């Protein structure tokens, strides 16, 4: 197991772990309704709570709200971006200190100070995140932990931050000379922020950014080749989650009136983590539920333990945190929200009977097959004229240690043509694909896509140059539906970023367009009957078609297909071949790796043959199939008489 695979969410292998979103009309509408209802209940609760509860209870609830804000950020980071932070209290502290210093030393208004504090924290997070988010798993966990401790030590030592005693006398929130320091008022202020943050987080998770990160959690390489800039998105979520921690820190500073280095303590980071995990990472609601639970647990343990253990003193409530954390990870990997959802699912109506997942065919092809004259499909305004070389590979070399997997390969693919790439197993075909699509950096040589030099660039840069690919070993987004998979392909063709996504309204129309386009492509590939089924439930052959639809969704000029025919029925193969012809007629350039040599020879305008990392033949199918070097490569030196299957 590589850590890349494991670095994702809490419970990859066992249950619904991450904040994964299913695109698809019905599911989305259901989710929307549920979230609206939940919000309405939450808001009603927030308004009513201080009127009903004792002021001591309200005081406790104020802190639950403060920590819910930070836990929500951490939950986004864990559930959405699949990244862990054991030093999140460090960001909370930076926000709290900034707010405290601005109000006490520079007499700024609490609200303005909070805004600046969030800004300062987010800038810090970007600076810290840029190097350390390149780390994974344990290394990232420990690096963030180290960051939190550095913040605590510096806050403790620096006179500017008040040394060990910190900063006190922080002003409460004030409007028009009225001080809001009653617990009920503080409760409403803090929980209004929680509701706002919850809405932002929910929108973010269910929109374009959430979908892309969900895809990353399923298959980072596939998401990257569809144009998702994983690192950038993760960094953005990291910065956003630090911003939420800073909001919490600001609230903390103004509620308590004191900030010291304890705000950055490791134990607070752990408490935040516990809140996110126990609530459940699968939904943004988890952090809020978790925060309430953990604060209640803390208060209860603080009150009860001294009765059981006379003379107990200190932060003994930690024992509850430790036990709950272990038990939750083992028995409740999805947290409370996920357990609640499962319970509700069991109580409610039984799941819809599973739709049949076989049958159908590539619809686009069948009509014109007989005529032999393919009707153009998926034309794109602005695509280079037919005959323009959109892929130019020159002198490509890739060495693994002493093994030369690719040796001085030249290749050219023009718009409006299909180039077949064949060769025996281990000839380096998939490796060449990986270099061209940016998955592997070459040792030497150049790769030009759409006129831009891209060798050594990341896959999302190649995708941005309008090259899309599929995978020989399927890289389907297994937590998503078929439409959801294809929608990820629209990532580059849509714009809503973290901010617009969080605000939701600007992104709504775009989301509808994405869904419509994805459905159109799903129909085109003959997958209409399974559009809303989980993609992982499909047979392998049809999963390949999903990958093709996904690649086409990026509106590529260059399509790189790695063994698309494997696992397809004869009818499906014919349908796919027809589709490819129509795409060619529309001006797309297609590079096709295929074991089914007959199919390649029938489809391709030119064929390149790789053997042992070298290009041993290149030309029209008929020339290549007669080439003695090719025959030898395939059949060994003895097979003089055999010819490869010629064009039909």
């Amino acid at each position, binding site marked *: 197991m590589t850590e890349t695979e*494991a670095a994702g*969410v809490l*419970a*990859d292998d066992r249950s619904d*772990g991450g904040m994964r979103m299913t695109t698809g009309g019905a599911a989305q509408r259901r989710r929307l309704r549920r979230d609206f209802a939940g919000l309405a209940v939450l808001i009603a609760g927030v308004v009513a709570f201080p009127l009903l509860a004792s002021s001591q209870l309200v005081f406790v609830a104020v802190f639950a709200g403060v920590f819910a804000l930070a836990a929500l950020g951490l939950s986004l980071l864990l559930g959405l971006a699949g990244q862990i932070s054991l030093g999140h209290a460090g960001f909370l502290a930076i926000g709290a200190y900034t707010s405290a210093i601005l109000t006490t030393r520079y007499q700024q208004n609490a609200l303005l100070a909070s805004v600046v504090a969030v800004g300062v924290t987010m800038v810090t997070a970007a600076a810290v995140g840029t190097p350390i988010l390149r780390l994974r798993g344990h290394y990232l966990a*420990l690096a963030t932990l180290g960051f939190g401790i550095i913040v605590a030590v510096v806050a403790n030592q620096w006179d500017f931050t008040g040394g060990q005693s910190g900063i006190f006398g922080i002003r409460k929130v004030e409007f028009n000379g009225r001080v809001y320091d009653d617990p009920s008022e503080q409760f409403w202020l803090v929980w209004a922020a929680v509701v706002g943050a919850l809405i932002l987080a929910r929108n973010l998770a269910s929109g374009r950014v959430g979908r892309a990160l969900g895809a990353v959690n399923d298959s980072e390489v596939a998401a990257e080749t569809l144009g998702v800039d994983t690192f950038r998105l993760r960094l953005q979520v990291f910065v956003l989650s630090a911003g939420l921690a800073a909001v919490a820190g600001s609230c903390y500073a103004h509620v308590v009136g004191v900030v010291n280095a304890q705000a950055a303590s490791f134990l607070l980071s752990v408490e935040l983590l516990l809140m996110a995990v126990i609530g459940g990472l699968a939904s943004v609601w988890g952090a809020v539920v978790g925060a309430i639970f953990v604060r209640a647990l803390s208060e209860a343990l603080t009150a009860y333990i001294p009765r059981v253990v006379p003379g107990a*003193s200190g*932060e003994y409530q930690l024992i509850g*945190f430790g036990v709950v954390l272990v038990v939750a990870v083992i028995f409740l990997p999805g947290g409370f929200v996920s357990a609640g959802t499962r319970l509700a699912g069991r109580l409610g109506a039984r799941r819809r009977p599973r739709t049949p997942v076989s049958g159908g065919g590539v619809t686009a092809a069948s009509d014109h097959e007989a005529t032999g004259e393919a009707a153009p499909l998926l034309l794109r305004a602005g695509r280079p004229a037919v005959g323009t070389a959109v892929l130019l590979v020159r002198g490509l070399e890739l060495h693994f240690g002493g093994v030369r997997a690719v040796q001085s390969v030249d290749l050219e693919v023009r718009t409006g043509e299909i180039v077949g790439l064949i060769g025996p197993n281990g000839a380096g075909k998939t490796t060449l694909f990986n270099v061209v699509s940016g998955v592997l950096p070459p040792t030497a040589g150049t790769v030009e896509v759409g006129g831009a030099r891209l060798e050594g660039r990341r896959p999302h840069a190649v995708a941005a140059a309008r090259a899309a690919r599929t995978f020989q070993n399927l890289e389907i987004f297994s937590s998503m539906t078929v439409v959801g998979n294809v929608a990820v392909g629209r990532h580059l063709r849509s714009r809503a970023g973290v901010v617009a996504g969080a605000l939701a309204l600007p992104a709504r129309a775009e989301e509808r367009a994405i869904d419509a386009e994805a459905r159109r492509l799903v129909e085109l590939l003959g997958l209409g009957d399974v559009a809303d089924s989980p993609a992982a439930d499909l047979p392998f052959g049809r999963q390949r078609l999903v990958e093709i639809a996904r690649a086409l969704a990026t509106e590529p000029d260059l399509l790189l297909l790695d063994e698309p025919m494997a696992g397809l029925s004869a009818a499906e193969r014919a349908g796919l071949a027809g589709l490819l012809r129509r795409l060619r007629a529309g001006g797309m350039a297609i590079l096709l790796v295929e074991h089914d040599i007959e199919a390649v020879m029938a489809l391709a305008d030119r064929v390149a043959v790789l053997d042992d990392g070298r290009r041993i033949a290149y030309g029209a199918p008929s020339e290549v199939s007669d080439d003695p070097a090719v025959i030898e490569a395939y059949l060994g030196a003895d097979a003089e008489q055999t010819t490869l299957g010629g064009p039909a």
Partner: protein
Amino acid sequence: MTGPWPPTSRTVRDRGVIDFLQLTVAGLSAGSAYGLVAVGFVTIHSVTGIINLAQGEFAMVAAFVAIALLAAGLPLPIAALLAVLVVALGAAAVERVAIAPAAGSSVVAYIMLTLGVSITLKASALLIEGPQPSALPAFTPGILSFGGVLVRPQDLWILAATAVAALGLYGFLERTVTGKAFRACAEQPTAARLVGISPSRMSTLSFVLAGVVGAVAGVASSPVIQTDWNIGLFLGLKGFVAASLGGLASIPAAIAGGLLLGVVESLGAFYISSGLRDAIAFFVLIVVLVARPSGVFSTHAGVRAGVRAH
């Protein structure tokens, strides 16, 4: 709230060399404990791929057990040995109860599991022992002078205990059948499984071994560092920094990483600022992780940490 930054000012030093050596001794003493804890990290990580965040707590628990046994009237050597034994068994129990049931979980899940164990042990110690620190007496009292450099005998005890524990572990892994099976499991897990070595048994064994070295660190260093319930956090974190310096893969490199970290900290506290002592270790950690993830003692740098296959 006003004052210079960095927060110390100094006069000219005239005993530079002796001071330097004195600081180095202090650094080696602290560094030995880091090194042993680091060995615990390496032992568990090499077989299971888990970073055991409860590693520092093994040391803390061992010290408290030894103190309790001593108070119960046992002689110091017996108390120390029993403490190591108790922690070794405890570590096995931790593996069986908390780690094994979650087999196949993600890295994040394991981080949280070991974190949960760590906090549980810590809080239990707080409930049982209270917040006050306590310490074992020095194994031998007095003070030794080597040309003006003063050395506590306990510092030598710590170094000796580190050497014995590390060599003992090394011998166990090199010379015994079980040890060889353990190494096979770490280096060639698939092959090891094929020849009938049980990964789950080796996982338990890795915790036992880590428990032993952690316990030795805790007992030997207790007389000089004042064991309290929270000491495991910093011992564990610094042990991890030491293990990272060594690339998380080799026992000698982990020990070397610990000694290096101890000395750097000690010198940094004197020549830079005593207040920033703890930040030094973590600054080193982040720089090492980002710049040279395979460790400063490893020969092949440049492999991105975390994407290496195990």
